[in-house]
């Protein structure tokens, strides 16, 4: 076998994992007899070991930061969306403050006129609506921006927006009881918060949709 041509060629094929079985035998037989090729083969294998131990070099400090700063700006929507997802509680707080700042409360308060769905036989004292004793309201009753005292009867649902159901105590008899009755569902809505909650849910849905 020609050392420089064939044997060295086989050595490199061996190093690349390309040697066939017969070629492997051929190389082994030659190496047993040829000292020059033994040395050559040994040097090649050692070279590879040495290459592996070449000095490791680290990137300079702040390399990643510098790259990130040079990237083109990402779409704003994505940036906000990611922030919201990472900080759900802060997001809720932020939304709350945005509403506060944008004057939701004051806007709501301006619309504070007392509204009652029906007025016949009812007494209105300031911001309080009274269903007097002996009076029966047929159907549903809605009171907005006011309190309600039921001394009579309501034959229907009662909805209170921004107001409370006051229970007038009959102190003379030493009893603490509501004297009237509501023959339906009582629903109280603190509408400012209800509305904010509704809006917040709406905004969240919008954020997480994309």
């Amino acid at each position, binding site marked *: 076998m020609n050392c420089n041509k064939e044997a060295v060629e086989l050595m490199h094929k061996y190093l690349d994992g390309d040697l066939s079985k017969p070629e492997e035998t051929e190389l082994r037989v030659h190496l047993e007899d040829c000292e020059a090729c033994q040395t050559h083969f040994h040097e090649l294998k050692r070279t590879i070991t*040495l290459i592996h131990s070449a000095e*490791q070099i*680290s*990137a*300079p400090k702040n390399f*990643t930061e510098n*790259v990130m700063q040079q990237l083109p700006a990402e779409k704003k929507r*994505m940036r906000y969306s990611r922030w919201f997802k990472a900080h759900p509680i802060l997001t809720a707080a932020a939304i709350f403050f945005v509403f506060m700042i944008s004057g939701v409360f004051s806007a709501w308060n301006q619309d504070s006129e007392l509204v009652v769905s029906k007025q016949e036989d009812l007494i209105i004292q300031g911001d309080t609506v009274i269903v007097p004793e002996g009076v029966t309201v047929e159907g549903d009753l809605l009171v907005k921006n006011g309190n309600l005292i039921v001394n009579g009867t309501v034959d229907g649902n009662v909805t209170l927006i921004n107001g409370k159901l006051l229970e007038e105590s009959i102190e003379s008899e030493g009893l603490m009881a509501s004297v009237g009755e509501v023959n339906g569902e009582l629903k109280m809505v603190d509408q400012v918060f209800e509305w904010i909650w509704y809006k917040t849910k709406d905004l969240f849905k919008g954020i997480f949709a994309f």
Partner: protein
Amino acid sequence: MDQIIREKIKLVKKGDQSAYEDVVSFFQNKIYQHCFRMLGNAHEAEDIAQEAFIRAYVNIHSFDDKRKFSTWLYRIATNLTIDRIRKRKPDYYLDAEVKGTDGLDMYSQLASKDRLPGEEVESIELQRYIHQEISGLPPKYRSIIMLRYLEEFSLQEISDILDIPLGTVKTRIHRGREALRKRLRHV
């Protein structure tokens, strides 16, 4: 790790820039080192390595998810280094190759790392010598030797990275090994 990188790349493709930070952080030393060995100096290596990451980000949509991201990234980096070597003015080329410049760069790199006890300093000198001998190979052999033995890519992957036929990769790695054998024989 491949799987984590794959997931990060998906996020980057969706427009999540922060996911790319992890990708850069994971590959920064490998790519910087590759550029450093190709170019022989720290300044150009940093410049080109950054450029490689930026290009990969900008062109992320042309990256095929079924392939290995590292292969694609090395391809960009290698092409940029070869481009830079070609564009060098003759006098700049001489400057960069002046003996000692490399060593100085290397030294400042090392100085920032933890000092090793006396016994291992000798091996650091040897490691540096080997690095310099690899850097002294012609670029077309150097890139393949580095990709094969320092970055552990397969010959087929190297063929993809450099966009040259597998047969050519084998011929060049063969010549590269022979050249280094002669340079490192007396070590």
